[in-house]
């Protein structure tokens, strides 16, 4: 394992955790649809997507753990809510509204593709090697969700109306994915997280708006004031703690159990 400069270890791990935490909760929210998907193919798709997201989270936790000594399980399940770095958009429940689930995935999947692409250019080889694999899988997610956004947006008046309502509800949460992490600049400067958030934001909005245009939909995606929330700094919605309680119920019974 190549060495990271000591002072960059903490922000680097923090950055990996933010990516893994987004994937973990997005995957969990997706897995709630298993058995309840609107059609059989989508039931299978959502379960597969959840499995992908969980696998991606797990690989990122393992990498973070190889740097700071914790296990993937400890990182996934052994932290308190304020120690997570996920954005609000992966925390809120979708109330089993299919359009909301799709809208959430739409914003997150495009963001993740860009973030993983930056990871794939990292000077830290274990991350760039892993991220190249993840990018290939993430492409499938993006293609799939774009397909649905366009299909529902241009389908029937009813599907368009419901997709637009979902975009109205979820869209405003989406830019918080870009809330800056602490100490990100030294990582960018060291080539560990190359590129710029501004460029990434521009690329994300351009892609997202392009697809929304094709789907005859719109979304309000204004970046809020930095004081608004703060998932990247551990300030979460009311939904995270109960979701964690549910996810960690078995782990907490016997944290040292081997699986």
């Amino acid at each position, binding site marked *: 394992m190549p060495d990271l400069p000591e002072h960059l270890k903490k922000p680097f791990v923090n950055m990996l955790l933010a990516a893994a935490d987004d994937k973990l909760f997005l995957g969990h929210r997706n897995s709630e649809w298993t058995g309840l998907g609107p059609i059989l*193919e989508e039931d*299978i*798709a959502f*379960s*597969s*997507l959840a*499995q*992908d997201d*969980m*696998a*991606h989270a*797990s*690989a990122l936790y393992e990498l973070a753990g190889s740097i700071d000594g914790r296990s993937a399980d400890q990182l996934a399940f052994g932290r308190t809510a304020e120690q997570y770095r996920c954005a609000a958009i992966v925390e809120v429940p979708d109330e089993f509204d299919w359009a909301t689930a799709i809208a959430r995935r739409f914003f997150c999947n495009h963001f993740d*593709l*860009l973030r993983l*692409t930056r990871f*794939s250019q990292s000077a830290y*080889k274990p991350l760039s*090697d*892993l991220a*190249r*694999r*993840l*990018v*290939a*899988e*993430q*492409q*499938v997610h993006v*293609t*799939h969700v774009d*397909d649905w956004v366009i299909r529902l947006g241009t389908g029937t008046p009813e599907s368009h109306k419901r997709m637009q309502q979902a975009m109205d509800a979820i869209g405003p949460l989406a830019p918080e994915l870009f809330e800056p992490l602490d100490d990100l600049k030294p990582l960018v400067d060291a080539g560990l997280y190359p590129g710029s958030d501004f460029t990434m934001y521009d*690329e994300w909005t351009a*892609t997202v708006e392009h697809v929304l245009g094709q789907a005859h939909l719109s979304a309000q995606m204004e970046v809020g004031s930095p004081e608004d929330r703060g998932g990247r700094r551990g300030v979460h919605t009311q939904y995270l703690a109960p979701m964690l309680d549910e996810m960690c119920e078995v782990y907490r019974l016997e944290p040292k159990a081997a699986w």
Partner: protein
Amino acid sequence: MIDRQSILDVLRTIPDPEMPISIVDLGLIESVGVSSGADGNVVEVVALPTFVGCPALDMIRRDIESRVGEMPGVDSVRVQWVNDPPWSVDRISEAGRESLREHGVTVPDAGNRLEVHGGPATVPLTVGATAIPCPFCGSTETRLDSAFGPTRCRMIYYCDACRNAFEHLKRV
């Protein structure tokens, strides 16, 4: 000293847990090394995961350890999963493609990758976007039924000519 080729021959008898193809034909094996030292003869197998965190990886690792471990003269076996080079469907051998096809699983053709967002694009998932020849009757009257299937690496297609469903590997 144990011969590398005989280790590869043993690896060739290990099937993928989820598909009718050996792990060698699937292109999982990147390298095989043998070293002799204080620990005796140690075989090191470097393997590439198909999908990140594929649940079959542990099973494959155990199969390699036990089957190669049974070879005379082998004292221990180490399996290392690496992501460099990345596995891709292009690593599947001709024999492997043939075996999969016989079982109704098709593999994307080599090449033909698009660049999207600086990364490789996958086969379009939009229904009807790409004709994949049916593995049973050869017809191209096929369509994507579901971009997701029994495992994370497979999609489901349907052939309108012979009315069979078949599976197609995702291009990663």
